[in-house]
């Protein structure tokens, strides 16, 4: 028998061993529970229903119809010539046709109220990469970005992990429907200073995730004034801009800039993606639109690490340039999302649960604080656990979104059939009744 000599373990980096990826939070834990026992209408009707994933599946048929009617989109026409250029084409400028198509589509989504220059479109493999890339460009390690709460849990990873940048929250609460106020902005800035962080920018999501509301024009103006005063950047993640239930209710920061004749625009950068509005997260298509030349140049170069497949660019270029298709899609998608939203609001209301009045997105912001045993984070997590394991619904607790008020939950409604949504609503109704009866009998 030999003697075992312990081998020295080869070390990994701090980034590799850090927990900043945040994947140990309940937001992700719920997903694991779903993965282990996923609901299926036929084969597993008592499984966990996934309501924690903001995915849009309501308009697939429109996409399929387009591809069926336009087979040349997915081929390169007959023969190799188009293919030759495409297969090798790995220039980080991206296919010009695709960049132009993206700019056009973004204009359509904003009702033609703004113009986007294809030269300012930088392509990335998803908005996740776009947000991280912008953070690398706008801030040094140790600096801070101000982000309104509650916010998308993924930001903790996307904005902080490899970049070493900090997030300082801009606190918003239910008293004014979670709107961002100038006071809250100033407060956050001071908080950052107190922590010795240099603030480099404000990052907003408009329409908001997880709130499901658009930011009013007046608030956007205030935010723009704030970042101008402080001489910092503004990143507007408008990934849900095409998922606003009514077009007139969304104002993009681009519109405000155009109104101001692009004064001070060099501090503004817009992030967009096809993952939500077009329901194509698997395609990995994101963009950065910047009004700052240096940022565009730098982002382009850095996008080498996150290029979109030329095949995908080609596939989508023709689709997104097809006016008839995009207009119809945007309108139909909006309408369907609105109907879904109304369905879930009604369903929740009949169970005695109120939600924040929303007008966009693939989810609603649900108020379950009356059901909390204790109005604390622990109370919220306890309720969340019960909902996950007893009711078998995966929803996202507000604490994972850094909400300062316990009891709020994000519930997604667009990633399932109507039937499944009905089932989910039934389960919630029964659960709430059970709790009410329990509380009453005590």
């Amino acid at each position, binding site marked *: 028998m030999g003697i075992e000599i312990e081998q020295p*373990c*080869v070390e*990994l*980096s*701090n*980034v*590799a061993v850090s927990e900043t990826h945040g994947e140990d939070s309940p937001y992700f834990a719920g997903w694991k529970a779903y993965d282990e026992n996923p609901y299926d209408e036929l084969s597993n009707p008592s499984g966990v229903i996934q309501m924690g994933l903001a995915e849009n599946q309501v308009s*697939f048929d429109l996409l399929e119809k387009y*591809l069926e009617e336009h087979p040349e989109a*997915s081929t*390169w026409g007959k023969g*190799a010539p188009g*293919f*030759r250029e495409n*297969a*090798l*084409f*790995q*220039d*980080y400028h991206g296919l010009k046709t695709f960049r132009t198509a993206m700019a056009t589509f973004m204009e359509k989504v904003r009702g033609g109220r703004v*113009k986007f220059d294809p*030269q*300012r479109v930088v392509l990335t*493999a*998803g908005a996740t990469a776009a947000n991280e890339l912008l953070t690398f*460009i*706008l*801030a*040094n*390690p140790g*600096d801070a970005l101000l982000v309104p709460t509650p916010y998308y849990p993924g930001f903790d990873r996307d904005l902080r992990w*490899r970049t070493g940048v900090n997030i300082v929250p801009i606190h918003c609460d239910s008293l004014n429907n979670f709107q961002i106020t100038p006071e809250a902005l100033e407060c956050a800035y001071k908080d950052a200073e107190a922590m010795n962080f240099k603030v*480099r920018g404000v990052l907003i999501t408009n329409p908001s995730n997880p709130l499901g509301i658009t930011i009013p024009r007046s608030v956007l103006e205030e935010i723009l004034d704030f970042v101008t005063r402080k*001489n*910092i950047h503004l990143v507007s993640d408008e990934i849900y801009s095409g998922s606003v239930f009514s077009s007139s209710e969304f104002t993009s920061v681009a519109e405000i800039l155009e109104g101001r*004749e*692009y*004064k*001070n625009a*060099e501090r503004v950068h817009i992030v967009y993606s096809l993952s939500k509005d077009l329901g*194509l*997260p*698997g*395609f*990995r298509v994101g963009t950065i639109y910047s*009004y700052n030349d*240096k*940022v*565009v*140049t*730098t982002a382009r*170069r*850095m996008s*080498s*690490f996150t*290029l979109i*497949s*030329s*095949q*995908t660019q080609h596939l989508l270029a023709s689709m997104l340039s097809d006016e008839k298709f995009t207009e119809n899609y945007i309108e139909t998608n909006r309408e369907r999302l609105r109907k879904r939203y109304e369905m879930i609001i009604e369903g929740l209301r009949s169970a005695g649960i109120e939600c924040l009045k929303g007008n966009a997105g693939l989810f609603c912001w649900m108020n379950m604080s009356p059901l909390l045993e204790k109005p604390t984070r622990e109370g919220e997590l306890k309720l969340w656990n019960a909902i996950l394991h007893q009711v078998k619904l995966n929803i996202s607790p507000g604490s994972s979104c850094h909400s300062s008020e316990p009891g709020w939950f994000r519930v997604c409604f667009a990633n399932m059939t109507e039937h499944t949504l009905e089932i989910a609503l039934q389960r919630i109704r029964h659960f709430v009744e059970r709790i009410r009866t329990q509380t009453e009998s005590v």
Partner: protein
Amino acid sequence: MTQTRKPSSKPEAREAQNPSFSSSGMKLIVPLQGVVQGRGGLLLGTLVPCALFYFLQLYLKRRRSTANCNPPSPSSEPTLPRTSSRSNLSARGSISRVRISRLATQISRPDESLYYVGLDRVSRDPYHALDNPDGVIQLGLADNKLCLDLIGEWVARNLEDSVVGTGLNINGIAPYQTYDGLMELKMALSDFMHQVMGESVKFDPSNMVLTAGATPAIEILSFCLADQGNAFLVPTPYYPGFDRDVRWRPGVDLIPVHCRSADNFNLNITALEQAYSQARKRGVKVRGILISNPSNPVGNIMTQDMLYSLLDFAEEKNIHIIADEVFAGSTYGSEKFVSLAEILDSDYIDKSRVHIVYGLSKDLSLAGFRVGVICSFNDSVLAAAKKLSRFSSISAPTQRLVTSMLSDKRFIREYFETNRKRIQQVHDEFVDCLSKLGIKCAKSCAGMYCWADMNGLIRPYSEKGEIELWEKFLSIAKINITPGSSCHCIEPGWFRICFTTITLEEIPLVIERIRRVVESCKSSS
């Protein structure tokens, strides 16, 4: 083909030389700052005046920029065209412009690496047989165009089915997929690599993380294996892109281990040892060795013995090895490629320090599709890399298409046979023609380029002479080749010339253009 990537060289060197700082005052500041920041404990008499001077300059600079409506763009790229409604985009009237990060400032500067400058020159005036016969011929990008016809035919025959499936069910490819790649593609890639790298190599799909090209694969590994300020040892000459992949965002340094023509640019362990000890003396923590095998730009293959020696070295120092094997399938000589993975079978070897990077850009000519792989035997690295791959995932329809292509075993076999033959043909012809011009190449058996010795043509025998020759090739001969200095080669006069971006028939044209330069060099001497 057009450029893909941008600047590289050492930030410190660039800072000192770069003339594009916006005011000449900064030329004074930078060396002063260097002095001030160099060591602690400077006499106050030096420190205070320097600080005052610095603030004075800063104040003056700010005053100048308010008066300046349109500060010149530091980028060498054409300024972005503006519509009239955007004419106010520049900092008109603003006193302090909003700042970007240090990293971004560094990256936004004009390219200094001639590797990228050359790519840029081609993109402005690209050769085309019919439309632009006097344009610049691209011989500076290791892309394989020789067998695109085969791939194109396959795609034309199979695309519809392989991407959206029968019935056009988009449900499969639209939703979120696992970020580190579909299992089907991992399995297909595993099989493919098995074919390419030899029978004894078998990669378990569970040891693989897929990324959008080999470029992010190298970057992700750099993030996982080293901290900012650490270093990897890298044999020279090396692929210029490493400077970007490893230095930019991970902030890891690359310490060259110089290889010489006397050894046909093969690595020798003594040089490795020396580089390691010197780094240690300077207080730099070496975390790993980065090799490309087959080598880019030389095109030689590491022997099994050398691979064992490397492993022993890494074991002894307790560091990692990253082996970039993207050209594994592009061999044409008689030597057989041996993957690092092949020799890992012994029990005494700690597999957890070995990480292999592969991709389909070279061997399958699919650079535009962005398909790369990290193969690691270290569970923690795999776990971290999986999470990081979300920033660089492969597009789902492309994963489907490529899975389908790789599963067509007959096609893959035919492709490889034909590809090998064509590369060999073009290589042999090209190297032969070059030697008739008096230009010898290093002995190579893989890759898409030859490593040509032009030291007889440069005057003086230095980097300066080499750069002048490079410029001659670009302006007189209108061909873009990569000078050895961009690859950090210690001996001046070597150039990497890619031959897979031209056809056999175009070789005489290229040779003729090279002859012009050779003649011009001889006549001027």
